[in-house]
């Protein structure tokens, strides 16, 4: 094949999806351009030299000073500008039915399908009850149950700091951490008891389809305990833990996720699959789909700071994960809509929420100014709220 022929054919060849890729990239590049701070043009050669010297001195200062690393990071962020350029300036509505629970500096909120929202109060770390009738949340050293109008139904005070409440699937139990211990209380606030003394700082996870079996992490083990009797059903050693525990809705698979990867355990605690993060990538968040057939996960590359959102099958025939989204900066959480058709991506570094279709179908809705919407006193990334659960299509 002659060089000329190679040239002719390659010059006429096209890459797939050029137009769509260009449109997506144009948004990102415009955002990056807008976020940069243009410098006044230097005058003449002397001006250029002066500017160059100033840049060199600044660069040296950034490298040499102890605070230089933080400043350099900030400077890079000022030019990066992640986010969808044409995001709507405010949250208008959710793309699917249900209600979204949000944890901001100002407190816990419920966002309705039509975009309206209500501040429940100065509560944090909220979690839905199984049918969305109540919210369990934390206020200092108190565990509280709150109705959707913000009325506190009951509260329970503890000596140690309270965190990470998790409501059982039947609604009759709430597991939570107090100090380093795991405790369980009845759904009406009575019968508080100790389950395990020293546990890791991971939200406990109730196994679906069983009475009151709850999984938690302690001493590099995943343990499944009967919360009523205290009997340990099984314990499995897992390394590099810290992160999340999530059960599939059928109770047959437990996903144990940490920064370095995840493990799938069956109902008896046997590790059936291990997936490690690629070198340089950290797993940030996972979410099992409402139907239990898929897992959405967010990971971030340490070097570039770029984040990816992937979807992988749970069970059935194994296949390569599908990449749903990639963007600059940190994405904190991913949440499934109750109908499993959409994923909410909480894009902290862009101060945006993205709703992307969970399937191969194209669809993206972007909303900017999220931090200010939930706490006007902290309108930037530092005040970005946490998405805490998308509940209940009815």
């Amino acid at each position: 094949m002659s060089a000329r022929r190679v040239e002719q054919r390659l010059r006429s060849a096209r890459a797939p999806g050029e137009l769509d890729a260009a449109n997506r990239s144009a948004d990102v590049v415009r955002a990056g351009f807008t976020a940069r701070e243009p410098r006044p043009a230097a005058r003449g050669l002397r001006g250029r030299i002066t500017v160059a010297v100033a840049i060199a001195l600044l660069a040296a200062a950034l490298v040499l000073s102890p605070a230089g690393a933080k400043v350099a990071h900030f400077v890079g962020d000022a030019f990066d500008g992640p986010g969808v350029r044409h995001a709507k300036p405010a949250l208008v509505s959710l793309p699917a039915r249900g209600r979204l629970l949000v944890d901001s500096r100002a407190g816990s909120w419920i966002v309705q399908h039509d975009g309206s929202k209500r501040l429940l109060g100065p509560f944090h770390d909220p979690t839905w009850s199984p049918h969305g009738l109540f919210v369990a949340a934390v206020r200092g050293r108190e565990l509280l149950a709150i109705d959707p109008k913000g009325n506190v139904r009951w509260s329970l005070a503890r000596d140690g700091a309270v965190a990470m409440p998790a409501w059982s699937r039947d609604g009759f139990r709430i597991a939570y951490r107090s100090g380093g211990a795991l405790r369980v209380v009845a759904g009406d606030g009575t019968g508080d008891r100790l389950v395990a003394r020293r546990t890791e700082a991971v939200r406990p996870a109730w196994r679906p389809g069983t009475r009151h079996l709850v999984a938690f992490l302690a001493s590099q083990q995943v343990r499944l305990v009967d919360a009523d009797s205290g009997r340990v059903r099984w314990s499995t050693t897992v390394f590099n833990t810290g992160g999340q525990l999530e059960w599939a809705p059928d109770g047959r698979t437990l996903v144990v996720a940490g920064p370095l990867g995840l493990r799938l355990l069956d109902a008896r605690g046997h590790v059936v699959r291990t997936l490690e993060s690629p070198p340089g990538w950290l797993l940030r968040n996972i979410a099992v789909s409402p139907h239990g057939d898929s897992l959405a996960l967010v990971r971030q590359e340490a070097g570039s700071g770029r984040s990816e959102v992937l979807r992988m099958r749970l069970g059935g025939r194994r296949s390569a994960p599908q990449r749903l989204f990639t963007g600059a900066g940190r994405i904190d959480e991913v949440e499934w809509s109750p109908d499993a058709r959409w994923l909410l991506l909480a894009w902290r570094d862009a101060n945006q929420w993205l709703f992307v279709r969970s399937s191969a179908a194209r669809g993206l809705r972007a909303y900017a100014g999220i931090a200010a919407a939930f706490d006007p006193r902290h309108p930037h990334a530092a005040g970005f709220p946490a998405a805490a659960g998308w509940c209940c299509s009815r």
Partner: protein
Amino acid sequence: MSPRAERALLREAQAGSAEALEELFRRFWTPAYRAAYFVVHDAGAAEDIAQEAFLSAVRSLERFDRRRPFGPWLNRIVVNRAIDHARAGALRREVLGEWEGSSPPEPDPGEHDELVAALATLPPDRRAVVVLRYVLGYTPGEIAKLLGLPRGTVNSRLRRALDALAGALGEDAP
């Protein structure tokens, strides 16, 4: 676009003109995306590479010397990152087994060109010189400067690449 017009465009972009940036993007993004795609043979990765290269260019805009042409500067970033990605992709498949960084590159629907498919079978380094030479139109000397290679190495890789492409397509070598 004449070198003078390009310098004027860069000057305007450096001064903050969004229209100038749009024009730069319009002129240079698609060739960058195609070049990345022909090297990595993965549309998603190619989009990331071209996008990151442009973002890198935007971040460095004030420091860019307008006396240099913009295209080769951008394309060097694109091709080097594409080579890195292609090399890292092979390594990831060995290390990770079933969990890839992204979906494995599959023939994209609509791609019927045997030559592009054959190009994907070459090692990343040879793909890159083919793309720089026959897609982006650089001379072997310019390619040598872009990639930091001896000119003889570039010529050798081009020669081997053409032979391999001919073999893959069942044609006589030139």
